C-alpha cells in the first residue's frame, strides 16, 4: 500500500524480501545499508535471535531522492525465513508494494526455495494480493558457492511469470542493488498505472 502524502510531498513504498531461511535476505539489507551514504538511510533494525536468525523482521528505510517533486522513501523489510515463523511472515506482507524473492542457489536448498515460493503465494492471497500481478523480482543468491545450481536450471524451477531475475552474491554485494533497483522500478511503474 503506497502512502502518498500530498501535504509533505512524499511517496512511501514498502518492499519485502522473502525467501527460505539462511538464504541471504538480511545480508542483502546489510549490504544496502553499508553502501548507502548516511543522509539517505535510516537505522537498520534487526529483530533477531541471539544467533542472528531473523525473529520478526529487519527494517531499513531508504530515501532515494525526488521524483516529480515528491520525496521517495522505500521501506525495506525482510521476513523470517524459517518455516515455523509463518505467522510473522503474514504480518510483514501487510501493505506490501513489491516483493523480492531471495532464492538460495545451493542444490540442497532447491526444495526449500520451491516451498517458500508456495508459501509466499498462499500468504499473499490471504492478504488479498495475487503473486501474478504484484511487483515481483527474483534473485538467485550465493552464486559464488561451488554447489550452486546452474542458472538455467534454477530459472526453470523458480521463475513463475517471467519476472526480472538477477544473479547475486549478497556477501560481496554482487547483484544486490540491481535487484533492488528492478523492484523499485516495478513499484514506481505501478504508481503510474493508478
Amino acid at each position, binding site marked *: *500500500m*503506497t*502512502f*502518498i*502524502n*500530498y*501535504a*509533505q510531498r512524499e511517496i*512511501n513504498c*514498502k518492499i519485502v524480501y522473502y525467501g527460505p531461511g539462511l538464504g541471504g535476505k538480511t545480508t542483502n539489507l546489510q549490504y544496502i545499508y553499508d553502501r548507502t551514504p548516511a543522509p*539517505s538511510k*535510516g*537505522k537498520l*533494525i534487526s*529483530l533477531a535471535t541471539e544467533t542472528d536468525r531473523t525473529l*520478526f*523482521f529487519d*527494517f531499513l*528505510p531508504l530515501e*532515494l*531522492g525526488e*521524483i*516529480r*517533486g*515528491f520525496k*521517495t522513501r522505500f*521501506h525495506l523489510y525482510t521476513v523470517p525465513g524459517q518455516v515455523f515463523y509463518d*505467522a*510473522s511472515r*503474514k*504480518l*510483514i506482507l*501487510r*501493505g506490501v508494494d513489491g516483493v523480492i524473492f531471495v532464492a538460495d542457489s545451493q542444490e540442497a536448498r532447491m526444495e526449500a526455495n520451491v516451498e517458500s515460493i508456495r508459501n509466499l503465494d498462499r500468504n499473499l492471497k490471504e*492478504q*488479498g*494480493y495475487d503473486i501474478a500481478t504484484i511487483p515481483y523480482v527474483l534473485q538467485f543468491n550465493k552464486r559464488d558457492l561451488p554447489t550452486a545450481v546452474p542458472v538455467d536450471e534454477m530459472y526453470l524451477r523458480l521463475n513463475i511469470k517471467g519476472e526480472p531475475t538477477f544473479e547475486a552474491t549478497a556477501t560481496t554485494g554482487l547483484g544486490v*542493488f540491481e535487484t533492488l*533497483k528492478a523492484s*523499485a*522500478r516495478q513499484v*514506481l*511503474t505501478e*504508481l*503510474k498505472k*493508478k
Partner: protein
Amino acid sequence: MSQDLVLYDEEFQKIRQALQRLLEDASAKLVFLVDKNGQQIAAVGDMSSLDTTSLASLTAGNVAATDGLARLIGEKEFSILFHEGEKDNIHISIVARRVILVVIFDDRASLGLVRLRVRRATAELEAVFDEIARKVESQKVTFITELEGPFSEITDEDIDRLFSE
C-alpha cells in the same frame, strides 16, 4: 488489496491540530500517528532525540503481532497497548481501525490522564478519517485524476536518477 492511503493538506492539518492538542492536554513528550503498515503520518512534540521512522515501523510491528495474538485467543483486537519504562512510557491505541496513535510520556503525566485525553483525541481523529473515507468515496474520480498528475509521467530516466545519486 488494501487501498493506498492518500493524505491532502486539509486533513493533514486537522490531524496535526488534534495531535498538538493531545500533546498539550496530556503533558506528553511526543505524540504521533502511524499507519498500520508502519508509515508515519504525522508527529508532534520533541523529536530531536528520536528516530521516528524506526519508531513507526516497530510500533506497527508491535501492533501487528498483538493483533495476531488477539485473534489466536478469539478477540478482534487489543485496542490499547501500554509499555512502562523507568522514565518514559508508551501508550499505543488504534484509531478508526486503520491507524495507530502513539503517546510517549514521562512522570509529568499519568496513565489515567493520558487515557482520558487519548479517548477525546481518538474521537476527533476518527472524524477526520471518516471524512477522508467519505471524500475518497464521493470524489473517487477527482482523486484519480489528481493522482495521475505527478505520477503518470514517471519515466525510466526518473527512476534511474534515483539510483545514480
